[in-house]
């Protein structure tokens, strides 16, 4: 597998050095432990909104560090959660006395590492709360699984909570908002091809030319079902129907639709899929009030996409529209 990488062991640190140069006006990058923080952190009196996770999902999370979104992001090794030391350092660099909210995707490793970090930060005297995002409808939430995974809906949680924190909402308010958003956001993804982790050197799973993997996560792990490939008109409903049925979203709802690429999907195909999804939603009487199309939560070079729906209300629309200035999302400033 060809990659633009020198040494898999240093690929994340090497990429972070490039990112620091590319966005010196917005972020500062620290190494050992690796933490990306807002250039103007700590922001006086503001709740620090912090996330992190394995690398390989860019722009998630470091691409969302900046005004109106995250105060810090902790990039782990590729597809591996960050360590508690990283999260503790992120809290120390961004806490302005108003406490820190940790946004955690629901994976066993992420939850445990952030849990240890929260214990350490509390020992350091910082008030820390954690919210776990689990928007993936492909995984059954039962006693027999680790629970639903956190996927592209995490971007929406980070944007909305980041906007609230920027407006001066306190820690309890940010936590309550995050839980409210998590409660109304749902996603599902599919893959047309697997991806290759640099140090693994081979694809994460095998997929025939005429097959798609439905219900994938964001780590190149196989999904729950393999299905024959088909035209976009059959693929888009295969994602949208389970998402709609889950919350459920019904006629009269106002939603934000995120059509997300997995890293190797051309924008042409994403717009094509987005158009179909909007049409299907309109047919059901669901109003798409806000939308985002692009590759925001990725799995390296995987070809594929996910659809995320968030049920909106006036407050969430206002927070979505609030100014944001990060490497990957910018508007209103």
């Amino acid at each position, binding site marked *: 597998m060809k990659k633009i990488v020198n040494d898999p062991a240093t690929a994340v640190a090497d990429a972070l050095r490039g990112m620091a140069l590319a966005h010196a006006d917005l972020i500062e990058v620290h190494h050992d432990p690796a933490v990306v923080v807002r250039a103007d952190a700590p922001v006086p009196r503001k709740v620090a909104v912090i996330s992190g996770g394995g690398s390989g999902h860019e722009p998630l999370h470091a691409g969302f560090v900046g005004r109106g979104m995250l105060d810090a992001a902790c990039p*782990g*090794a590729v597809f591996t959660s960050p*360590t*508690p030391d990283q999260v503790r350092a992120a809290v120390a660099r961004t806490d302005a006395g108003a406490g820190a909210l940790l946004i955690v995707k629901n994976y066993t490793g992420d939850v*445990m590492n952030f849990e240890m970090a929260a214990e350490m930060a509390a020992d350091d005297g910082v008030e820390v709360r954690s919210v776990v995002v689990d928007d993936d409808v492909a995984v059954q939430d039962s006693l027999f699984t*680790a629970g639903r*995974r956190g996927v592209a809906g995490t971007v929406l949680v980070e944007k909305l909570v980041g906007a609230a924190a920027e407006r001066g909402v306190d820690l309890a308010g940010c936590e309550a908002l995050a839980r409210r958003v998590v409660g109304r956001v749902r996603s599902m993804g599919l893959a047309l091809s697997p991806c290759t982790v640099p140090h693994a050197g081979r694809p*994460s799973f095998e997929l025939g030319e005429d097959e798609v993997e439905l219900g994938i996560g964001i780590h190149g792990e*196989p999904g*729950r079902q393999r299905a024959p490939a088909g035209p976009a008109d059959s693929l888009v409903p295969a994602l949208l129907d389970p998402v709609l049925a889950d919350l459920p979203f019904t006629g009269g709802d106002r939603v934000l639709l995120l059509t997300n690429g997995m890293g190797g999907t051309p924008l042409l195909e994403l717009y094509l899929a987005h158009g179909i999804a909007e049409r299907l939603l309109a047919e059901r009487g669901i109003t798409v009030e806000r939308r985002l199309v692009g590759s925001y939560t990725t799995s390296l070079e995987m070809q594929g996409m996910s659809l995320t729906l968030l049920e909106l209300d006036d407050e969430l629309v206002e927070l979505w529209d609030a100014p944001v200035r990060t490497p990957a999302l910018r508007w209103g400033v």
Partner: protein
Amino acid sequence: MGCTAERVADAVRAVARVVAEHREELVRLDREIGDGDHGENLNRGFAALAPRLAEEAPGTPGEVLELTATTLVSQVGGAAGPLFGTAFRRAAVAVGGVAELDARAVAAALQAALEGVVARGKAAVGDKTMVDALTPAVAAAESVAATGGDVAAVLSAAAQAAEQGAESTVPLVARKGRASYLGERSAGHLDPGARSTALLLRTLAGSAR
């Protein structure tokens, strides 16, 4: 003969070598039912250990175990970092400040490690995790320690039980961790965490001989 700090340090250095040798195997096992990073992550953590042991020269077995814990927690990430890190930390607390570990101390350390793993990961026997290897290992270690076996005998029994426990994960359907997302598709595969736990105990047993 008891286990001094130097012997415990030798043992964890031996574990580091074995993890490096089995890196590919653990990556392959994890790729089948997880995300393929287990061998890489554990190897990164244990590889960082040798220089730290040389630098800090911990003076008691407990200090060696504690340094192992902090190194793994800060270097490994994933689920393995908190789980192995918590296991070594609880073991360090269990053995306290003694200069040498006897058989009973080793068995008690393994018991404490298991309790730490269960508290952190909330897995039970049968969930297809490292707990399936560690639980029978602790039982075997305690039984041998209670009947007067030495450290080598305790660890040897623990290693053998862990290997059998790891094998027992093959037909299981995973209920914890990333493998649980696969549902029935996780059956028929050896759990990578159970495998690395068995490897670790086998290596400790070899070092104690």
